[in-house]
């Protein structure tokens, strides 16, 4: 395999995409609309509910006493500000704690920053960079306690947003691939291309590669924009930046590329059967079905039950990709293209 030839084809295709206003609109408008609009739709209501919930916890702490650089043990404290304090066997209510260490203590309605905790209980508190006794971050920027159902709903909404963003790497290839394969067929430019020394596989890699690169660039940009919008919207209420969380990282790095690949390869198969770009795009629309399945999963909260479901789903998509690749390789042969492609 000569990768340089695939790169030449990919570069040519990207140059053609840049000159195609429909492709450019798809690459720019759809990701921007989805990544900016959807966070408002899905996160703002949750935000509002969280804000109400936060009011109940009452973290508007009024300080009446302050401790700095001391060791405190077997004490009950309220409305205190503690800085560089070592706490042991203490009960704290409505306190602001910073740069401190605590063991065998109970915190309720506190704002705890940059502190190390061991063998302690925390209720209805806002946490920032909390470490264990060994210095490992155990809870980072998170509101602990409050309304558990609301927290679960918030996680589901983040996953729903993730699923909707996964539409981007699926939908962009239906447009780009149809222009790349069907367009080339309609333009009758495949014959001179196939007469060059490039192998069928190198050509498939080059053409798919160009679509993958532009689709994933738009996808990752959308993820970045979307996560930033969510973080900007939620941080004032939650007190931390919730995205990207572990589900999003798997989604961005595994699921999105897997779905993108599925979309590209399916479009190769579709291209062999149709000779109209619009027909190809319409048939390519069936690719939203696996996303719909994923969407239903995400609404049930199934995906929030640890990383296993999303990892398994990603692996399933890659397995399906393997099958479609095998079919595509059978279809994407010189003779098939020239003689049997419609």
């Amino acid at each position, binding site marked *: 395999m000569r990768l340089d030839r695939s790169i030449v084809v990919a570069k040519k295709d990207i140059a053609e995409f840049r*000159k195609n206003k429909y492709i450019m609109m798809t690459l720019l408008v759809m990701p921007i609309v989805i990544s900016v609009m959807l966070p408002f739709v899905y996160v703002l209501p949750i935000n509002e509910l969280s804000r109400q919930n936060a009011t109940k916890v009452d973290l508007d702490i009024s300080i009446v006493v302050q401790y700095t650089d001391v060791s405190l043990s077997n004490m009950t404290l309220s409305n205190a500000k503690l800085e560089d304090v070592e706490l042991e066997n203490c009960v704290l209510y409505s306190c602001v704690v910073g740069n401190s260490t605590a063991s065998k203590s109970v915190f309720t309605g506190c704002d705890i920053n940059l502190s190390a905790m061991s063998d302690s209980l925390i209720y209805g508190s806002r946490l920032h960079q909390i470490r264990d006794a060994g210095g490992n971050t155990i809870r980072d920027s998170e509101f602990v306690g409050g309304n558990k159902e609301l927290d679960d709903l918030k996680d589901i909404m983040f996953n729903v947003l993730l699923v909707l963003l996964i539409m981007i790497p699926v939908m962009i290839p239906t447009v780009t691939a149809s222009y790349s394969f069907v367009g080339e067929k309609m333009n009758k430019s*495949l014959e001179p*291309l196939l007469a060059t020394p490039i192998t069928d596989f190198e050509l498939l890699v080059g053409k798919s590669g160009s679509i993958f690169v532009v689709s994933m660039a738009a996808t990752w940009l959308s993820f970045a924009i979307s996560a930033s919008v969510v973080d900007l919207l939620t941080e004032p209420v939650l007190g931390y930046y919730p995205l990207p969380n572990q589900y999003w990282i798997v989604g961005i790095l595994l699921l999105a590329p897997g779905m993108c690949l599925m979309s590209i390869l399916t479009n190769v198969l579709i291209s062999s059967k149709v000779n109209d770009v619009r027909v190809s795009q319409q048939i390519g629309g069936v690719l939203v079905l696996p996303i719909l399945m994923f969407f239903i999963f995400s609404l049930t909260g199934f995906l929030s039950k640890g990383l296993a479901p999303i990892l398994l789903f990603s692996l399933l998509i890659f397995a399906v990709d393997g099958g479609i690749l095998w079919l595509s390789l059978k279809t994407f042969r*010189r003779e098939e293209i*020239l003689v049997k492609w419609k």
Partner: protein
Amino acid sequence: MLETVGLGRTFDGKVAVENLNLKVDEGEVFGLLGPNGAGKTTTIRMLCCLIGQTSGTAYVNGFEINKEPDAGQIRSIVGLLPESPGLYESLSASKNLEFYAELYGVPKDRRERRIEELLKMLELWDRREEPVATYSKGMKQKIAIARAFVHSPQIVFLDEPTAGLDPQASITVREFLTRLSGEGRTIFINSHHLDEVERLCDRIAVMNRTSLAVGSPRELATRYWGRTTVIELTGSGEDYVEVVRRLSFVSNVRTEDGKILVDLDDPELRNPGIIETLTKAGAKIEYVSELKRSLEDVYMRLIGGGPR
């Protein structure tokens, strides 16, 4: 340089090409003539290793078609102009050519020089940066021809190189092909334009699924029509037909528009005898010439259009 041995191809039981035997020498301009559906494009596609054969084989510069690794070698030494230009319309002429030159692995400096040389030769240098979509049909065809030559291939297959071109563009293309064939390159042309093939090609094959005849235009005319001497007299030739017919070496003699037409196996040897006989019989000869048979006459006889 190129040889087909019993080459054949069927599509779902339908014969497109069968038992095709051709031999094309290095540096030769070879024309393949035939009606629509005669298998010309299928032949070119097989020779360029675009589709496989179902019988026989062929060798291009010693490499066997559709057999790895030979097929890859063949693709790197041949250039192809298909029936449709198949250019990337949104890209400029130079980008189109650059893309193909890169695919063929032409080094950057040589690539630039070659593209400039070809575009200047085809009078398109000034418009090289404009998108191909803005070009006329003739200009697109010229770019497609330049693309077939961009990697300086040893053999070039041209499928209808002047199809759809206006006379001026056709002349430019013909001059271009004549110039490039002069570089010792083998050129294989599929065409319906008999006069063009006659002008450009050293040898011709007429095919209709299989090869019906191969040779130079003159050889084919002689082979299928014989040679005919035309004698124009002062006055009608009718009075002297019988005089000529009595000569032992004359097999067929007739008159057309008052001229005497004599079919001969060797006009250079027999013409002096005929002239002497006619002169003795009192005929006044104005001039003697040879009847030129066009390639079209040969083609129509071979393909089944009947004698003309």
